[in-house]
């Protein structure tokens, strides 16, 4: 079952190359249908079709086993025309998806980049495998990777990225192309900056609220997931124990005459009941995956908010620096010392400096001030751009989240209903058997 299917949100390339979102409040599905929208997903059909095990030598020349995933793509117009060409395909490992995502995160710091499915199985209950090679885990991961690609390819901004396009179409040499963008250097500095603690004086309130919200989202979804896993574990126990009825009824029926048949067949239904829980819980894992996606999305949202803090901080630093330089200039020019400085003290102690020296210093200051003003302009622009673009994506994210999670809850209810129906059937059958006793 595919998690909240991302529909192509509407993005139009306007003349100056800036993406703008065209109204998406109501059925984004319906409005998108008739739009020209240029997101990649509209132009290209894609899926992660299969997974396979491979063996090879890793970076340190050691033998390792890993899984590769088959990405299939097909141009949309070919499909629309009714032609059915064979899809283009290539194999990618999880680590390559990670590389792609890291690149996107660094290159578009104002975008809440869709998360990847978890690297290792978490919130595992006792019968669920935590082994990365387990076929069920691999299958769920395949679905998660496909979901990731669909989300990225339908994002109004991310979908236009060239590296993304190469990822989907060029099997070899892609990694080199990514590294050539030099994003790695940006990634390192960004990592350092984001993990540092700094105090921002005037952050945009909306982003502070969003950061707080992202913390709450993270905390609530992980608590829910943990509780759900425990419930699943217990439910498994309840169903499986009924299998013992199957065994005992069967043995008991052997010594009874009139009751034998009824007991025997009732026992079979108890076995069926016990067996039914496996499929039920496997399906529920998909629900858990939908929630996990938003657990990880919370991190991405937080990162965007932190980036805002960072740009705002840098702006404040630059402004602060400019102010102090201007003050210095004023002091030099008027001779009035407003603030304490050692230079001022030494001047007092050793006498005023020569006019030529003062001129030189003033000139230097003017240059620095000019630079500083440029810097402040740049930083202000950077900050504003980030805030504007990020806020647009936050709005988009909010709508997507509300829609997806509501769908997930509905899916959960549908699953419960299916489980109840199975239960009704099994126990009604068992009752029929008991009646024959």
């Amino acid at each position, binding site marked *: 079952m595919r998690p909240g299917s991302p529909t192509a949100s509407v993005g139009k390339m306007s003349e100056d190359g800036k993406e703008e979102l065209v109204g998406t*409040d109501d059925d984004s599905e319906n409005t998108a249908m008739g739009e020209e929208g240029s997101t990649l997903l509209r132009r290209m059909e894609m899926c992660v079709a299969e997974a396979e095990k491979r063996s090879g030598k890793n970076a340190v020349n050691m033998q390792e086993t890993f899984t590769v995933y088959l990405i299939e793509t097909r141009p949309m117009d070919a499909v629309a025309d009714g032609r059915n060409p064979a899809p283009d395909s290539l194999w990618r490992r999880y680590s390559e998806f990670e590389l792609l995502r890291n690149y996107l995160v660094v290159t578009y710091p104002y975008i809440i980049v869709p998360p990847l499915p978890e690297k290792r199985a978490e919130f595992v209950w006792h019968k669920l495998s935590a082994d990365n090679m387990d076929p069920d885990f691999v299958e769920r991961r395949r679905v998660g990777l496909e979901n990731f690609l669909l989300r990225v390819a339908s994002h109004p901004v991310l979908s236009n990225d060239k590296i993304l396009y190469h990822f989907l179409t060029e099997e070899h040499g892609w990694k080199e192309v990514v590294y050539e963008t030099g994003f790695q250097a940006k990634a390192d500095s960004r990592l350092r900056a984001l993990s540092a603690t700094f105090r921002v004086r005037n952050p945009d309130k909306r982003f502070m609220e969003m950061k707080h919200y992202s913390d709450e989202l993270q905390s609530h979804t992980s608590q829910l997931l943990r509780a759900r896993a425990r419930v699943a574990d*217990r439910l498994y126990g*309840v169903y499986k124990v009924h299998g013992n009825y199957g065994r005992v009824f069967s043995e008991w029926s052997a010594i009874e005459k009139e009751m034998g048949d009824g007991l025997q067949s009732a026992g079979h239904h108890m076995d069926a009941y016990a067996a039914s829980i496996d499929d039920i819980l496997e399906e529920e894992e998909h629900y858990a995956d939908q929630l996990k996606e938003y657990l990880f999305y919370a991190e991405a949202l937080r990162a965007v908010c932190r980036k805002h803090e960072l740009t705002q901080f840098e702006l404040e630093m630059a402004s602060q620096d400019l102010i102090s330089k201007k003050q210095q200039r004023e002091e030099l020019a008027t001779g009035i010392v407003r603030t304490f400085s050692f230079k001022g003290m030494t001047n007092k102690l050793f006498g005023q400096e020569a006019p030529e020296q003062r001129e030189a210093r003033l000139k230097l200051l003017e240059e620095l001030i000019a630079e500083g003003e440029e810097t402040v302009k740049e930083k202000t622009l950077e900050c504003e751009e980030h805030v504007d673009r990020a806020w647009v994506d936050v709005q988009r994210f909010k709508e997507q989240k509300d829609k997806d999670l*509501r769908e997930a809850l509905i899916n959960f209810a549908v699953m419960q209903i299916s489980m109840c129906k199975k239960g009704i059937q099994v126990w009604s059958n068992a009752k029929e058997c008991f009646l024959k006793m």
Partner: protein
Amino acid sequence: MSGQTVSADFSGHMLDLEEDEDLEVFSKNTSLADGSPVPNSPSSMINQYRLEEDTAEQQNGNTKDIFITVDDPESHVTAIETFIVYRVLTKTTRSEFDTSEYEVRRRYQDFLWLRSRLEESHPTLIIHPLPEKFVMRGMVERFNEDFIQTRRKALQRFLNKISEHPILSYCQSFKVFLTAQELTSHKKQGAGFLSRMGETMRAVANSVRGLRSRPAEFILMQEYVEAFGNKISSVDRVTQRIIREQREYLDELKQYSPTYTQWAGSEEELAEPLKSVASCVERCSKETEERIHHLSDVLLPVLHEYVLCAESLKAVMKRRDNIQAEFEVKNEALASKKVDQEALQEEVDGLADRVEQANNALKGDWSHWQNSMRTDLKSAFISTAEKNVEYYEKCLAVWESFLLSQKVEPSDDRNSGDVS
């Protein structure tokens, strides 16, 4: 019996009674205004009633002419001990009884006395077991409310089984038990202690000697009883395990629904569906609780009784064996020619009759017991299956109402624009 009478009805203090009118049935009040016993939950009440009805109709084919209830447990405190006394109410149209209604008070010891008297008079009839003296697992206190209720229901079932038995229900001791205000004087009469001692000693002597040959049908019966005992014990254990697993599941469910509510606190659009899911999970928890009660109140007691039945059946078979052994001993002595032939012959003939009587009684009662067992267990299993169907139907309705609420809403809030 001196001492204060303290009502064993603790429920008023323990339960928080709300306005819910259904709660009256849920309350652990041990008696309603008319004195009839009140079970713990409506479903067990329905099934209890059905169980007793079915059994009664099965056995007699006609209408019952005697109705017995055991209720109103009261705590009696004396200098030496504290014990529970139950009210035994009998309503009957039988001519052997002087009036149509009797009310006496009996304690567990009195039931024990009755049963052993019945066993003495009819050693090879299958007599329904009494609830155990002490229950080892789970309950520690003898005065624990659940324990008292479980015991009370089992005592009632015991008396009703006796009353439905074609032979036992006409025993003098049974009538005395139901009617005499004071049992102490009756307890001192009758063969009682010494004869029981004698029987036990003879039994030991005979078992040392061993049985010549058991008739084929009783060999088969013995094998069946062994196997049945095993199987019913297994079913009993499996059921206990299921109850345990259900309880643990319930505990986790109770922790699960708050996680949805908490999350709703930080959401806007999602708050409503999240809270709705929380409430659905809560309602399913309540249904799970009901399901557990049903298992404990309806299925488990019946299974447990038949575990005890298997033990009592083994005892019956032993007694039959002993009667046969006694005859064989004397019969052999007759053949040795060393003793007074005439007197011994008479004794041997008497013993031979006794063997035949015992065998016939057991044979007759065997099919009676088998039918009874089949009816009781069938009824309990059916009831359990029905309860499970009901459980799933109720949960289904809960989740369907959630879906309904979600499909209806969108048309309302879609046009409200920006929600933040």
